[in-house]
């Protein structure tokens, strides 16, 4: 037990060192890399934390991608028209919630199939966003500045990494804390979990299952909308058709990865943010077979760490080996096609899903028991 407690921080540190080594050999600034990972993680984090609440209430909304892209264009349009990114974010949240409520009414009131309706939401959202977005392509959104803290933000390493982000980064962190407190500590949160656990019993005790679920769905939509707006207003910042490129689906996978726990969802979002940024940066860098081997070892090390089936010694050796191989591979530049690197976020999603689902007992432990089931009051 004590060994495990000790190795946890050691392993995380080693993983970060490995990341830094990769950054350095690819000619990148690790601090800058860290900061851009944080930016890249926000859309995923916002969408995933919202979807987690929805799933905790027992509803599976597969339309995250659709709500995100609607949020992206609505945020962009509101920001450009008003000149204020704040109005953009507000508009995105409202648009996301509105679209989510279409899903809510269909699945909760009209009792349609949740899988099919979620897919419809995505297809519809992608089309509608493209339609609305036509006049906006090529425009630049109003800038969304970072909240600098005088003195502190200029500190080396710590400053750019933690203390000079925009308001949404801090908001998202606050949201994770709020969701954590809400679900674990508050009575409404407990009722929401109860509805997701056993809707028939919650109904018998007099709770309004449909109203609670509609509220959760709207919240999830607002979060997805915010996530989308962060893409178009901060991360890119520009409007492109289909710019979410599967982020909504990855957010769904992050909820599974996070085992419906807020902090693990946040960890998942940062992990995927890291993968995305890494592959983007590596597309520009020179790659060798040796390097690929090192990268493979890196992914393998992440996998072994997550499954926690490997012993501490194996993990230490793995991470040390990753760092060594990574450093060694700094020679021999041969480029490989960029497309293969672009596949990594999607492949990592699949690997993570497989790892998290393989242990059925653990996967089911925290999953809401009536997830995806149709609720109809009878009698």
């Amino acid at each position, binding site marked *: 037990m004590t060994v495990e407690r000790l190795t946890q921080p050691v392993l995380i540190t080693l993983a970060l060192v490995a990341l830094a080594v990769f950054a350095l050999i690819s000619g990148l600034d690790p601090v800058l890399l860290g900061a851009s990972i944080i930016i890249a993680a926000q859309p995923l984090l916002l969408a995933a934390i919202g979807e987690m609440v929805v799933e905790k209430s027992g509803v599976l909304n597969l339309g995250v991608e659709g709500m995100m892209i609607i949020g992206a264009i609505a945020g962009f349009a509101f920001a450009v028209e008003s000149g204020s990114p704040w109005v953009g974010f507000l508009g995105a949240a409202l648009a996301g919630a509105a679209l989510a409520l279409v899903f809510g009414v269909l699945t909760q009131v009209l009792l349609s199939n949740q899988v099919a309706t979620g897919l419809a939401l995505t297809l519809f959202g992608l089309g509608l966003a493209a339609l609305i977005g036509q006049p906006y392509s090529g425009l630049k959104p109003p800038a969304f500045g970072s909240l600098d803290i005088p003195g502190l933000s200029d500190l080396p390493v710590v400053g750019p990494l933690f203390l000079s982000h925009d308001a949404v980064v801090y908001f998202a962190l606050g949201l994770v804390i709020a969701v954590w407190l809400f679900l674990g500590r508050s009575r409404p949160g407990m009722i929401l979990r109860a509805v997701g656990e056993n809707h028939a019993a919650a109904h*018998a005790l*007099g709770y309004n299952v449909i109203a609670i679920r509609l509220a959760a769905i709207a919240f999830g939509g607002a979060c997805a909308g915010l996530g989308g707006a962060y893409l178009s207003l901060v991360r890119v910042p520009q409007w492109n058709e289909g710019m979410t490129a599967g982020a909504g689906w990855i957010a769904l996978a992050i909820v599974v990865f996070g085992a419906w726990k807020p902090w693990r969802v946040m960890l998942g979002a940062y992990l995927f943010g890291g993968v995305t940024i890494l592959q983007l940066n590596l597309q520009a860098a020179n790659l060798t077979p040796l390097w690929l081997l090192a990268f493979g070892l890196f992914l393998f090390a992440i996998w072994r760490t997550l499954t926690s089936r490997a012993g501490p010694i194996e993990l230490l050796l793995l991470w040390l080996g990753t760092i060594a191989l990574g450093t060694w591979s700094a020679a021999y530049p041969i480029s490989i096609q960029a497309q293969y690197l672009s596949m990594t976020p999607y492949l990592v999603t699949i690997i993570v899903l497989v790892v998290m689902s393989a242990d059925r007992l653990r996967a089911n432990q925290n999953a809401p028991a009536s997830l995806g089931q149709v609720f109809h009051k009878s009698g």
Partner: protein
Amino acid sequence: MQCDGFAKGPRVTPLLSINGITKAYPGVVANDDVSFTLMPGEIHALLGENGAGKSTLVKTIYGLVRPDAGSMMLGGKAFQPSNPQAARAAGIGMVFQHFSLFEAMSVAENIALGMTSPPDRRELSRSISETSARYGLEVDPFRQVGDLSVGERQRVEIIRCLLQQPRVLIMDEPTSVLTPQEVWTLFETLRQLSAEGVAILYISHKLEEIRALCDRATILRGGKVVASCTPVEETAQSLAEMMIGQSMAAPAVHNRTPGDLALDVQSLNVKSDDPFGVDLKDISFSLMSGQILGVAGVAGNGQDELMLALSGETLVTPETLFLGRRDISVARPNERRVSGLLCAPEERLGHAAAPAMSLTDNAFLTGNARERLSWNGFIKSQVTSNFARAIIAGFDVRTPGPTALAGSLSGGNLQKFLMGREIMQRPRVLVVNQPTWGVDAKAAGDIRRALSTLADEGAGVIVISQDLDELMEVADVFSVIAGGRLSEPVKTGSISIEEIGLMMGGDASVTQQMEALHVDP
């Protein structure tokens, strides 16, 4: 037959009076002008068959159903709860038949969810311990409900009600999942509450229990109040006749002589893959042809797992299951059917039958293998439909025809169809789980007779049931499943209900003593 209980008690104002409650659903009037009164401190039985309208009535009192007509008075004031919160605030508590509990949450959280404004955590767990000590309802507030036994879960439900100091406590079929010993403990608690002035509305169709516990009884049939009486002055027979509205046929006397070995189980061990499931441990027994083996036990003690292992939905280690001489341990369901082992699981909709498919399709579901209803994978629709028709005719299934959806049949009719489906295939061994659960008395009688006839004709039958009376009636030999272990079968009649109760509670020493007593007489 009808006797009046009103004259008996002293004239006090009723605590709850129900006046002319009527509630109709499409095609059925669940409650038709129902009236009765509940006195303070009274234990009042609401007696009736499945479908008599008991559940609808108590849901009306608890604010879950709005009546079409009629009114209620609680403590002299008009009472019209629009939701359960309002009913609870007015002093109504309810313990549900299918518990309204959340398995993945703690006892304390479950209790807090059933209260309109619970105190903070510490205060709540203190009052939980206090109440459980006072009424002898031991339970740990920090355990997960999913890990509790059925009896413990019921205690959680009761404590949840008691914490809100109810004036009226509604108990919906509370004993159907308890061992006889747990039933006696529950009765003690209820009598204590009644002495404190709480009125208890006790819903059941178990006549002896009502005679033992209740002060008065109101009997419902077809949604109407047909009688009200003082249970101790009645016999179980007369109560049953009021409930069913006709005389009961005496159970068929059976004197069968067991034939050859039909099914042999040799130290069967199965690990359940459900986290809340039960592992089967070292189960051994032999079933002769022409013999009915009854398996008693409280729900969730391995009945479902035993059923799955016998049906072939779970495969078991080789050389543990033998049909006659043939090892069928790793034979898949249809292979077992072809060799003559047929099963009828407990859950009718979703396991034994597909609710949204026609009776013809459902006949094909298990009939294909043994009755050859397909040719090279192509379904012989005419033959299948004739098979379904034959079941409908042979087992008196009330339905428009074989194209009707399984889900549209009443519980009793569907169960007759499903039993008929297996029996028509002339099984060598038939395993049934809860054959008459939720089935009206007439259909239940038909089903039991059909099982007896099947055994008379030489098939081996295993009846798994939680209804002891049913097992006493149909079984030749009898055993108890508790904690995944099955006791050595003994002859029915050589064992008392008390002894069975102790075995059902899983008291290993008793089980061993019993085995010692009855195996080598």
